[in-house]
């Protein structure tokens, strides 16, 4: 549902079906809604069968990169020589994204069930659920659900009485966007600074505590019980568009929009309809200026481009952007594009782990130059300097935080150049007029 709004008839509620229903948070409530049947079913299948079903479904990672989940699981060693781990990524810090929070707040058992099924599939006896430190309420709700799941024998040394060990541990983050990057996340679990690691080795070979590890997003894992219960073919059939983008997706819509919230629609849903019908369009008297469709790390779309974008991985790429995390930032005609791009760059500068020169220096200089422009002291060459700097920040670092800063900056300058130029030519007096 478009939580906190009532469900819209055009939504396809799979993950969000029980949002707003506090009873679903409890073990008894979850069982009453058919919960943990999928886990029981999965534990009766072979691990290969579980992975095959998820491959069939076409489920792709919902954390941003869109990597097929079943394929990722199949990278884990078949012959287990040391401990295997599953890490569930609940660091959700990408500006514009707030879907995992809602999943955890309303359906904690949905996530635990998905974690347990995935852990079984990849032969992991231990799951680390990495929740960002600021999520105090989801943390409390997840912990309560976890305690109940242990008390009921769902988890532990003899999970569901099936002789399989599945332990889940909540690991609380402590404030760092970069810990959402999967290798930084593993370092953070190990009690280190959250610096991303150089790959290879990939996590499936050398992950957390040096052992084979799979990292998946909250929404990805929460989709798994439904795929097991109703079949991979069913999930695949939910797509409206490309066979490469399947199932439903929770879109978080925020910014200057009439009804911000989480809306669950099938892949391939038109952005225009999601924005205008489901989310209520613009606020009174306002017109759309731009949309950042996939969390703040992806290129900005103009209103015109946004209006014929299909919301799936391929549809966004066709428009020169990315589906990312599905966090959609809506900007209307009241928004000062230059100031907000500076504010986004400030986010990345603040969150850079500072390992790589291009990122540490690049994000900081991007902010400085944008602030100079905003202060009316911009130089004629500044926009080209920013574009050049952004190019140097792309594809050259250990992780893509640096690229993520460049993407909105470059697209904003390309598509809204007159707004930047207005600041340039007019000295201090006209700044932010």
């Amino acid at each position, binding site marked *: 549902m478009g939580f906190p709004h009532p469900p819209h008839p055009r939504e396809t509620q799979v993950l969000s079906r029980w949002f707003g229903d506090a009873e679903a948070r409890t073990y008894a409530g979850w069982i009453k809604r058919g919960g943990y049947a999928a886990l029981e079913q999965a534990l009766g299948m072979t691990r290969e069968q579980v992975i095959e079903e998820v491959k069939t479904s076409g489920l792709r990672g919902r954390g941003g990169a869109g990597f097929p989940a079943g394929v990722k699981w199949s990278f884990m060693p078949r012959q287990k020589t040391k401990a295997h781990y599953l890490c569930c990524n609940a660091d959700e810090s990408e500006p514009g994204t707030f879907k995992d929070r809602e999943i955890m707040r309303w359906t904690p058992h949905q996530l635990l069930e998905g974690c347990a099924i995935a852990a079984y599939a990849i032969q992991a006896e231990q799951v680390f659920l990495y929740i960002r*430190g600021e999520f105090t309420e989801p943390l409390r709700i997840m912990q309560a659900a976890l305690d109940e799941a242990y008390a009921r024998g769902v988890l532990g040394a003899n999970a569901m009485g099936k002789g399989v060990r599945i332990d889940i*541990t909540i690991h609380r983050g402590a404030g760092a966007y970069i810990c959402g990057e999967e290798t930084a996340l593993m370092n953070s679990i190990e009690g280190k600074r959250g610096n991303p690691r150089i790959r290879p080795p990939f996590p499936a070979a050398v992950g957390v505590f040096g052992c084979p590890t799979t990292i998946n997003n909250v929404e990805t894992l929460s989709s798994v019980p439904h795929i097991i219960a109703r079949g991979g073919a069913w999930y695949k059939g939910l797509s409206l568009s490309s066979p490469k983008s399947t199932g439903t997706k929770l879109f978080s819509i925020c910014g200057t929009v009439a009804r911000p919230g989480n809306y669950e629609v099938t892949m391939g849903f038109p952005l225009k309809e999601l924005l205008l019908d489901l989310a209520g369009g613009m606020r009174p008297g306002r017109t759309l200026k731009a949309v950042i469709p996939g969390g703040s790390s992806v290129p900005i779309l103009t209103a015109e481009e946004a209006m014929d974008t299909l919301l799936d991985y391929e549809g966004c790429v066709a428009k020169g952007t990315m589906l990312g995390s599905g966090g959609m930032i809506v900007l209307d005609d009241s928004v000062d594009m230059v100031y907000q791009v500076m504010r986004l760059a400030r986010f990345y500068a603040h969150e850079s782990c500072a390992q790589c020169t291009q990122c540490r220096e690049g994000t900081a200089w991007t902010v400085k130059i944008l602030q100079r422009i905003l202060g009316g002291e911009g130089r004629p060459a500044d926009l080209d300097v920013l574009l050049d700097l952004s190019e140097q920040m792309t594809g050259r670092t250990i992780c893509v935080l640096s690229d993520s800063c460049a993407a909105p900056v470059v697209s904003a300058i390309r598509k809204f150049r007159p707004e930047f130029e207005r600041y340039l030519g007019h000295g201090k007096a006209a700044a932010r007029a």
Partner: protein
Amino acid sequence: MSAADGAGTGGAGGAGGSGAGARTGAAATARARAEHGVAVLPAVFGDEGRRKLDAILARYPAKSGALLPALWMVQEAHGWVSPEGMAEVAAVLGLTPAYVKGVVTFYTMYHQHPVGKYFVQVCTTTPCNVCGAEDVVAAFLKATGAGALGATSPDGLWTVVESECLGACGFATPVMINDDFIEGVTAESVPALVARYR
């Protein structure tokens, strides 16, 4: 394990100077604080804290895994992560204080200085920013008397900071007051909110 056990139960915050090795620094700092009339922070990993820590340690294949949780325990007990707290954590986990400090400084939520009784974080990242988050910050600075970002109000009650995206962008503007997560705060609703805590 046993070496750390011994070090951990001695009460690193005590001014008795009983520590050895990695703990000497903590004991010395604590003694200096006591001499200068600065409050001595009680040990976090006494009997009960130690039991809690042991339960955490059991969930990780290496002791270092318990570092972030242990630092949370220190902050919960003291309101911030002091040098003594870091030294105590280092001792119980078999790490050096310098290593622990390196980790503490990476994460924004560990306070490296005492803060007001109420620590207010207002998200001002773009999605909230376009919905008036900066006005919310200004309203907090005014209503609390904190005056400036990062400063603590003269009554010692309030510290207000801007935070980056709190992961609740559809509920602009989200605000954290200590562990309370409050959605949909507006500049207009701030005075009543502040009054509720006072």
